[in-house]
């Protein structure tokens, strides 16, 4: 049996080597994530326009957001609308397409590529295209609507139609990743279970509801969470296509933060906005994880 001292010295050295190997990541996390977070929290308690020294305000920025700010409420509403609509639409569309792409048909690989392609088109480039597609007077979509006898829509130019239009654009571009993940999950559904439903006389719906849906629930949950978090971050479309309009109908939260901080030089205000976003998304995450215990089945786990 080795001496206790030698044993502990070897342990200490092992720990040191472990820390050393992990230090780049730890340093990166501390320098580029935690320190700026602390910094932005401190800034959110000040009035700072970058050009002059910051002025301590305490919680005034936060109070102002809820009382006298002219854009905060509208921005929250508009962002929440987009987040819910986009997550739901992407989810339903991706799952439906993944189910279809899981069928054994000819050219399966080609179809899978086609549905994934939009995910790699740069968003600024596709924005230019979508602007024309959505153009109320000459765009393709209104021509289609007129062709089938419906009325034209304002699409991006209408305060109530701008968010649904952006959701259409986002589902087209963003569904690719979600489809791929769903596809992988679908392929992990055990065949014997599906066959068992067939033997019992069930049709495709029974197969889906009784077997597929519970089996892919962890991935479903993942896609919902990731979808929500990504939707909250919408920015480019506001910045490039609509400037937050019309009538602030697309004044998304991150775009508002950017505008306040970098175009109006109102850093304290923007930092306060960012911390409120952090709290909201964290709260949402907590709620989701608690809710997931009701319906997400992890293979091998009890119940």
């Amino acid at each position, binding site marked *: 049996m080795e001496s206790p001292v030698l044993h*502990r010295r070897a342990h*200490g050295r092992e720990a040191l080597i472990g*820390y050393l190997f992990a230090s780049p990541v730890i340093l990166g996390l501390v320098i580029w994530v935690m320190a700026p977070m602390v910094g932005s929290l401190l800034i959110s308690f000040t009035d700072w326009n970058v050009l002059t020294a910051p002025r301590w305000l305490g919680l005034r920025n936060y109070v102002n957001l809820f009382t006298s700010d002219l854009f905060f409420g509208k921005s929250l509403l508009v962002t929440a609308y987009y987040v819910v609509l986009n997550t739901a639409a992407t989810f339903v569309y991706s799952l439906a397409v993944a189910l279809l792409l899981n069928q054994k048909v000819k050219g399966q690989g080609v179809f899978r590529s086609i549905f994934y392609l939009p995910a790699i088109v740069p968003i600024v480039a596709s924005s230019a295209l979508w602007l024309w597609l959505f153009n109320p007077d000459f765009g393709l979509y209104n021509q289609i609507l007129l062709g089938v006898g419906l009325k034209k829509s*304002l699409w991006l130019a209408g305060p109530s139609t701008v968010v649904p239009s952006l959701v259409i654009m986002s589902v087209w571009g963003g569904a690719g990743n979600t489809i791929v993940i769903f596809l992988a999950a679908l392929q992990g559904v055990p065949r014997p279970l599906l066959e068992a439903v067939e033997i019992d006389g069930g049709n495709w719906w029974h197969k889906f509801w009784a077997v597929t849906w519970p089996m892919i629930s962890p991935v479903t949950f993942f896609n919902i969470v990731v979808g929500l978090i990504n939707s909250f971050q919408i920015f480019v479309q506001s910045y490039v296509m609509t400037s937050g309009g019309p009538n602030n109908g697309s004044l998304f939260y991150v775009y508002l933060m950017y505008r306040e901080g970098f175009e109006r030089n109102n850093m304290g205000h923007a930092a306060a906005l960012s911390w409120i976003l952090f709290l909201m998304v964290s709260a949402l995450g907590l709620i989701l994880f608690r809710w997931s215990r009701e319906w997400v089945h992890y293979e091998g786990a009890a119940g």
Partner: protein
Amino acid sequence: MVQRPIPVLACALVVSLAAVLPVGAAGQGESSGGPVSLQYAFWGDQNEINATNAYLNSYMAKNPNVKIEALNFGSNTQFNTKVTTLAASNSLPDLGYFYEPNVLTWGMNGQFVDLTDFYKNGPPKLDALKFVTPDGKIVGVSVANEIQVIWYNKKTFDQAGLPYPPAEASKAWNWDQFVGVAKKLTRDAGGKGPDDAGFDPSNIRSFGAWVQNWWMPWITLAISNGGGFVSDDGKTLLLDRPETIEAIQKIADLVNVHHVGPAPGTQQMPTGAATALLSQQVAMAMDGTWDLLTIGLTKEQQGLDFGIGVLPYMKKLADASVGTPIVVYKSSKHVSEALKLLQYVMSPENSLPLLQSGLWLPNEKRWYTDSALIQQWTGNPRHPPEYRTAVVDFALNYSHRLPEYYVPTYSKMDDIVEPALQQVWLGQKTAEDVIKNEIMPKITPIFKGM
């Protein structure tokens, strides 16, 4: 004896905290009698990049001890992000373009050199181009002038058998004449005009007149109607005057009542006036003189037979000027050298290629009055014959100053005005309702707060 592992994590924390604490201001460069290094900030497309490099290179050739680094900031909207970051790290350039909405706020924060005395010398610049703080200091002057005109496609007018828009102020149309002509040029898919029976406003193939919905056109037309946004002395809001409200309503009515304009929105006609005219989707486009570059190229490369007309007036002839200013930063270590470069860059004779390309108009009065000088910048195929009266004379005689030049709270107020007015452009609410009930209550405290 207890062996404790070295607290690597603690060390890492200490090191990184030290790294993010503000570092002392980085020196910009020594100022001695010898070589001088200047940073010049600008933005623009390839055309402007080439022209900027050209005049900076010729300055360096004449001043061998000066080395100028031209910093391209990408675009005017990206500019403020980048310059704010530079300000935070005390590494601002020496001089250069500045994003117009923030010129006055930065100027009042003491960021720019006071150029009032500088501009007392030399040929006088146009007054409408001077950015002046409330206490009378000039912090920047637009490097170029831009006004608005009516661009039109001659082919569209020929096909309709209509006379071209007038190119002289004395013959300018009033608003009703302008609308009347626009109606004759608007056709739906069945070839009917707005005054014909069976006209289908939801299926228009070509529009008579495109007046955009941003602040330059509506403030100009409000001034033309006897109103405006802020009085010239900067003390009174004019937005709720009946004349201003009437002007805004008339612009909105172009689309919603007369059906001569394309659907409103922040991105109408995404490809711009040149393409809209060429494709005959639009017969007349009210837009800035900067368009001459693209419209001129469209004529040379694709045969667009264009013409220029003066703006229509509501009660009096009026136009407005915009132009990016060049400022000199107080933090510069070589202010006197920067001022010399400023003198050079601000002189129209040194940016002739940009003037001749049609992108810029000169910032000095004499370039609009002296025939020899006028010939220098307009005497080329890019500038059509009517340019002399429609642009040069009109800019000299009728251009007004816009609020961003003298109202520091303008951009904050505009954040409220522009979105609210979008309801008026869409025809959802009247101008009177929106301005009196939604806009004025919100912008009055901001305006007075200055």
